[in-house]
């Protein structure tokens, strides 16, 4: 499928990213359950869910911001990024003291989801043909 607009790039990235992270959640959940029981399963699901949320927020902010004038675009993208980072720090700090979390399982599902989503981003952008001018 040839991608012709930036909107299509982000729609495709979000869809494929969600599919991949769902697969990582299932696989990670199975491994987590085998390694650490119920806590491992919960940690894998929370890790992949957080990764999906925080990875797709950037794509969504760029997609929404592209409809605004330039200052609005950077406002939405950078503001979204700031909120996301603060939100992630707070979430990590809260989860750190939670007793239903298995640390390594959570960490490795987050890392696998983030890196997998990055690979999908790169492949989709490389395969897309974005016209120089679009309105």
């Amino acid at each position: 499928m040839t991608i012709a607009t930036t909107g299509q790039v982000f729609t495709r990235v979000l869809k494929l990213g969600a599919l991949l992270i769902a697969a990582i959640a299932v696989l990670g959940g199975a491994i987590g359950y085998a390694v650490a029981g119920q806590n491992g399963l919960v940690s894998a699901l929370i890790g992949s869910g957080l990764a999906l949320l925080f990875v797709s927020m950037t794509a969504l902010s760029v997609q929404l911001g592209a409809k605004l004038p330039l200052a609005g675009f950077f406002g939405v993208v950078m503001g979204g990024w700031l909120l996301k980072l603060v939100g992630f720090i707070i979430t990590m700090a809260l989860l750190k003291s939670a007793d239903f979390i298995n640390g390594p399982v959570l960490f490795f599902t987050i890392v696998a989801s983030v890196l997998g989503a990055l690979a999908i981003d790169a492949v989709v952008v490389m395969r897309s043909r974005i016209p120089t001018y679009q309105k």
Partner: protein
Amino acid sequence: MDVNNTAALVGNLAVVGYGLAAVGPGIGVGLVVSKTIESIARQPELAARLQVTMWLGIAFTEALALIGLATPFIFPAA
């Protein structure tokens, strides 16, 4: 005042880790965005392409932040 203890660190070292995990990607994303603004100012007709390239740059840089901020789960506090 005890002179020997003036250099002692008090508090949670993990806070320094959180700070470092935010500073690096913050500088990286700042560079990506500033260069995109420069490029769009030079060639506004390329804005759509540059925005996608910028997003890819931000995605790679912020991966470092997300992984860095999750490290307390694998390196437990001493």
